[in-house]
């Protein structure tokens, strides 16, 4: 009986939202070995720094990923601003925080939908994505784009969001919260959903620490490495506390994200109350100097790392982004071992690799 079923999983696969490839070696339905392979999305966009000046590069950077695009533009801008020693206006920083949290909500809702889809729960998927549309409407209304916002530039934001619009965002979010409560409750309480997630894909605290996993994956196992605890953004002022769960299974990871949605709503509402008036950008002059700079930001999927290296011209030497998924692939490899075929999608989803982020 030495044989095993070998199932190629991806890059094109209906249950996989993204082009990743796994060779799954199965016995019955148990995964004995899983070898991942990526590279289907690798574009090499970091190398575009040689052709785009550091300002235009911001547009390129936000196209690292269409889901967390706002975060990418912020992270990159923050790194360049740090390098050039630019102080960003207070209001811009607040706006960034608000939009970043909005995109977290949209990303988590998108993720919840895909999770539901991965477990064959079509109607839940539909309802999640229906709710997500209201966030996209906010985006479109305020920035003109639904997923790629092009809202951030070096030195601040392109435009201001008027007070009324901010108030409107709050109203939309408050309305959404009610429906969200019902929908997310399904994830937390429904028997069939729990059947798929509880006890599946257990990751201990030690695993997480050893493999350097981050984001909700880590927080689901009780490890706090939420980069929002760092200085960037207005989180400290808003009294941010990371959300931690301890079970370390798919359910815990899902719960972290569900709770984060509500937390983000709270953060936004609080921020809208506190946002000061003022300019939203400052004119940027000069070139990035010699030297390098690191910025870290908490993306929906975890901490992202930005590194820029200037050389005194308008072209940077190096712009590097280490995205959350990149750090989470090892844990994915680990967790796939010994699960069942029908859990593979669960595992992949709850660790939530975003391949276009990973490969840039």
């Amino acid at each position, binding site marked *: 009986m030495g044989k095993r079923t070998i199932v190629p999983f991806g890059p094109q696969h209906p249950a996989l939202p993204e082009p990743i490839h796994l*060779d799954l070696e199965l016995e*019955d339905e148990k995964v004995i070995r899983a070898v991942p392979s990526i590279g289907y999305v690798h574009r090499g966009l970091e190398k575009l720094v040689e052709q785009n000046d550091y300002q235009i590069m911001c547009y390129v950077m936000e196209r690292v990923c269409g889901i967390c695009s706002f975060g990418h533009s912020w992270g990159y801008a923050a790194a360049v601003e740090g390098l050039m020693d630019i102080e960003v206006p207070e209001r811009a920083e607040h706006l960034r925080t608000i939009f970043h949290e909005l995109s977290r909500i949209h990303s988590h809702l998108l993720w919840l939908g895909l999770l539901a889809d991965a477990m064959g729960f079509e109607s839940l998927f539909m309802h999640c994505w229906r709710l997500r549309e209201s966030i996209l409407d906010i985006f479109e209304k305020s920035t003109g784009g639904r997923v790629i916002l092009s809202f951030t530039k070096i030195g601040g934001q392109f435009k201001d969001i008027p007070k009324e619009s901010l108030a409107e965002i709050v109203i939309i979010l408050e309305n959404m919260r009610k429906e969200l409560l019902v929908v997310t409750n399904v994830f937390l309480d429904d028997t069939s959903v729990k059947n798929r997630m509880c006890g599946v894909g257990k990751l201990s605290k030690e695993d997480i620490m050893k493999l350097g996993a981050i984001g909700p994956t880590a927080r689901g196992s009780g490890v706090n490495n939420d980069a929002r605890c760092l200085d960037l953004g207005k989180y400290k002022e808003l009294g941010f506390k990371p959300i931690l769960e301890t079970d370390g299974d798919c359910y815990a990871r899902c719960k972290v994200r569900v709770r984060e949605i509500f937390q983000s709503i709270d953060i936004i509402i609080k921020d809208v109350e506190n946002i000061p008036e003022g300019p939203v950008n400052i004119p940027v002059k000069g070139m990035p100097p010699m030297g390098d700079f690191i910025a870290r930001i908490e993306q929906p999927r975890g901490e992202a790392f930005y590194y820029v290296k200037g050389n005194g011209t308008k072209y940077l030497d190096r712009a590097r982004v280490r995205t959350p998924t990149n750090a989470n692939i090892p844990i994915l490899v680990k967790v796939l071992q010994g699960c069942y075929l029908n859990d593979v999608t669960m595992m992949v989803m709850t660790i939530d690799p975003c391949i276009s982020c990973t490969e840039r």
Partner: protein
Amino acid sequence: MYSVFFLLLFPALMAVLLLLVKNDKLRGVIVISGAIVIMAASVYVALEFLKDGTTYFNFESEMLDWFMLAVELILCAAVIYLGMKYKKYLASILSLVQAVFLVWFEITYAHEINVLNNLYIDQFSIIMILIIGVIGSLICIYSLGYMRDFQEHHVSEKDRRPWFFFLMFIFLSAMFGIVTSNNLMWFFFFWEVTTLCSFALIGFTKTEEAVKNSFKQIILNLVGGIALILAIIVLGTQYDVMEFDVLLRMDSNAMYVMLAVGLFSIAGITKAALMPFHSWLLGAMVAPTPTSALLHSSTMVKAGVFLILKLSPMYGNNVVGYMVMCIGGLTFLLASMAAISQSNAKRVLAYSTIANLGLIAACGAVGTYEALWAGMMILIFHAVTKSMLFLCVGTAEHHIGSRDIEDMDGLFSRMPKLSALMIIGISGMFLAPFGMLISKWAAMISFVNSENLVLITCICFGSAVTIFYWGKWLGKMVAVVANSKDVEESVHKEEWVVLGLLATLVIAICFSFPFISSEILSPYLLSVFGQPVNPIFATFGIAYVCVLLGMLALLVVVPIPFFNKTKKKVRNNYMCGVNNGDNQSYSGSMGMSVNVSMRNWYMEDWFGEDRINKIGLVLTTAIIIVAFVLILGGVTS
């Protein structure tokens, strides 16, 4: 009457002859001609006695009795010796116990009992004779080619084929004896001979495993043998009875009768490899395939269920009835489950055999004419189909070098003809228009009619499980694997002939089952139960028979327009877009080219052999103990 003697003696003669012949060609001629004669003789006997119904022969000979005793004692001595030699003392002890009982009984009681008829023949015997005569002989012919290959694979060893064929033919002889003995002592004699033959056949290869398993067989079967002799002793000492026909007319609710029937049942259960005694049959799989086919499909184990079916009128709603029903039902359910976890084709077949024997036994134990009808039908279909499957696996094994189902990937592309036969065989075991299913259907109806909840449960769940393990095997074979080589040329002619004949038989029996039912089974049931019925039409109605036969015909006709005639373009399989241009491999991770490989489910966690066996052992042993406690306590119904 002489024709029956011929049947009993001729195979034995052939056996002795084959023991002396060393030349391969000559042996071939003898085996084939002998087998044909046996086949012809059994058909002749069948035709001769079919009209007459039950016939008894009073054939008495003091000499013969002593001869039998002598042979039995020699055999016992042989077992005792071998047991000492291989340090299997349990076998020696059991054999000794048996011998003691036997001698004691012979000396004290047996000679005072007057036996009216030593031999008999009725419709049931006819069926058994046909099965043994036709299938058994075909297997002998098949063995010729198979053993030639076998010898080639084991060149270094001494050619012990004469011994092999000797055993095969003796076996046939003994089997004929079992199904025609009315004298219980005779029955016992033939019974022991089959046990010993099978012992020798299982140990034929003399490997360590073979020896171990052969002793497992002999130990378990000696338990049965002791039960048998005890039963005879009980009957003899209490009622002065030593004849089947007398026994069958007795009131089974009398305590000692019940005890005897209980002991007979134990003997039947051991021989039929029902739980808790089933493990010997699995061990028997080390033997050359024809042996397995002979032991498991048509003969040895059939002797066990033959006994139980024969005793059917004694069962029913009484303690032994329930005991055998529960054991049969549980065996059916549990053995079917265990079959799921097996990838060795022969073991799957073995478990399936155990399961079906359980079902047959359960049918016998229900004690109604419907159930008996179903049981006999299953017996017939099972014998034909299973022997064919065993032989198919044997042939496949010699050509693909493995008896593992996992290696039968796309067998359809590699050995198309053999696969076609195998597919017929497998479908014959569980799919609708084929005989097995018809009989299962009848069994189900009879179980429901007898309102036995345990049996209803067992058959419902057991059938479901059966679908799974046959289905996945079938699936393995039909998979179309491109670029595979045809390895069928080297199959021996004898093998083809036999396989072809068996396959024809499988289908022919399906078509002729209304005939078998009305001409053979009904008269028998009438004589046993005294009810003038023809169960097949009572339970099904002629319309359904037509429907089934129609379906069968469809299955023969429908493939014709399809095979190799599609005009469709053939494209590659879908593999997430990474195939390497064909269906054989795809480009996987780390830049490797990964070969596609497929494995069936075995669900080891749920249906693992050890787990199931443990459950079966505990349950069935408990049932037996409880039953005997009840019987000895005087509770009979």
